[in-house]
């Protein structure tokens, strides 16, 4: 601690230069991160060398993947339609389920803490399960085909939509809610007249957003047998038909970009 005597001639005031805040926290965090990364690399047996050695394979692969097999397009169209179907129905089911769920999770709507805390907990639990896992489980129950895929998408969508919706519900203007209480409305009327009109544009936007995600997800659920275009990856990779793999990828890409574009435009118009 240094003391500087000020140049004020009348009085000598002693001032102390403030101490710089310690950087220990920063160093520790940096060290921790380096440690984590090092451990991860070890655990996953990743090595840069392997990667470099594998490079020629990658080139090989890329070469075989191009040009895509255009004739294969026709073969996979029905599967792509299936994928689209799955996304549509799954998202819709999820959206329908999400409505009551969100109402139960919103702290300004659910009647008491005993309701919304447990439901939020359940919602979070559902959201931790990866979608492919859900699909695999449903396949085990319902067998192969698009049906388990639809259920998986429904549960997955419900998780996303319900969370976004209840957060939106908690941020709406409380005024109209108060007005409906003052007018003597019962709970359902109260929700329909003051909550729904405020939340519905957001809700539709969330559903469209989830639909965008679901198209991507539906396109790979087939890897576990849950229908859609995903099962073709297995086949084509198994036979080393990389040009067909490209076809699948490109087709998926086209559909996804198209849906994304339409969906984004619709969402802009809503909000």
């Amino acid at each position: 601690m240094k003391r500087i005597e000020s140049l004020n001639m009348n009085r000598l005031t002693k001032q102390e230069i403030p101490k710089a805040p310690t950087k220990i926290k920063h160093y520790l965090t940096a060290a921790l991160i380096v440690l984590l990364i090092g451990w991860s690399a070890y655990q996953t047996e990743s090595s840069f060398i392997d990667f470099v050695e594998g490079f020629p394979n990658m080139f090989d692969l890329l070469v075989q993947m191009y040009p895509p097999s255009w004739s294969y397009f026709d073969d996979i169209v029905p599967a792509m339609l299936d994928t689209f179907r799955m996304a549509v129905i799954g998202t819709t089911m999820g959206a329908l389920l999400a409505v009551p769920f969100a109402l139960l999770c919103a702290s300004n709507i659910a009647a008491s803490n005993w309701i919304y805390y447990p439901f939020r907990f359940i919602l979070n639990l559902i959201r931790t399960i990866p979608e492919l896992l859900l699909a695999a489980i449903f396949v085990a129950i319902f067998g192969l085909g698009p049906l388990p895929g639809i259920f998986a998408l429904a549960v997955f969508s419900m998780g996303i939509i319900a969370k976004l919706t209840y957060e939106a519900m908690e941020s709406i203007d409380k005024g109209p809610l108060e007005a409906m209480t003052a007018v003597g409305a019962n709970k359902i009327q109260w929700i329909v007249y003051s909550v729904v009109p405020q939340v519905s544009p957001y809700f539709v936007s969330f559903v469209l957003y989830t639909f965008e995600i679901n198209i991507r997800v539906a396109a790979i659920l087939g890897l576990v047998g849950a229908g859609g275009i995903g099962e073709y990856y297995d086949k084509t990779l198994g036979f080393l038909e990389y040009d067909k793999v490209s076809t699948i990828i490109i087709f998926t890409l086209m559909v996804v970009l198209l849906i994304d574009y339409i969906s984004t435009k619709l969402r802009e118009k809503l909000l």
Partner: protein
Amino acid sequence: MIEFHRVTKIYPNGVVGLENIDLKIEKGEFVVIVGLSGAGKSTLLRSINRLHEISSGEITIDGKSITKAKGKELRRIRRDIGMIFQNFNLVKRSTVLRNVLSGRVGYHSTLRTVLGWFPKEDVDLAMNALERMNILEKAYTRSDQLSGGQQQRVSIARALAQKAKIILADEPVASLDPLTTKQVMDDLKKINQELGITLVVNLHSVDLARQYATRIIGLKAGQIVFDGSAREATDKRFSEIYGKPFEVGTNEADREFKYESIN
């Protein structure tokens, strides 16, 4: 008729909102409640239709205790009380007509109201209310496209559509400019005189209170410190009660403009 029997409200953090309030408001009165911010005006008003709960005591509306009412009975009592708010509290994205009709939901089954199937009489009632408030032409306009004054009129129309016998107004003109303030207060006065609806209004301007009220109640720290006619509510009287020169409202506009008495 509204009666307060030894009503007290103590907030969870220990602050006393209302202290032993005994009050009787007769049918047809135009009561204005004045007081500084935090004096308890809002608490008093909102306890009438039980938007705020009280800690002890009882409030009766036309002989029926709203304090003890539950569920359907509570909603029935509320149905007969209209309320207008400082921020209008309309559903912005809904049309004017829908907002006014939402005042009728207490009269019909859940199914009907959810689907929006209001009987013709209700729609007529709503339209008449809008006409009385001079905004019939905006019936199908979205509420957020209206000015503040217009929105407040829709709000009043909603209370009229409820066929309310009492209208509570919580700082109804605090967000409005002086001209619109006069219009809205005039409207309220007309409703009170022509339809005999009891009016209880919170204002922070004693001047405004004097022009419109038949009876003024002054609140200070949760207690009634003045209860008399507009004539008795002189500035001198109020500065005695409030212990300092009582300002003519905290509203900037109040200080700049003088109102003409409507008498």
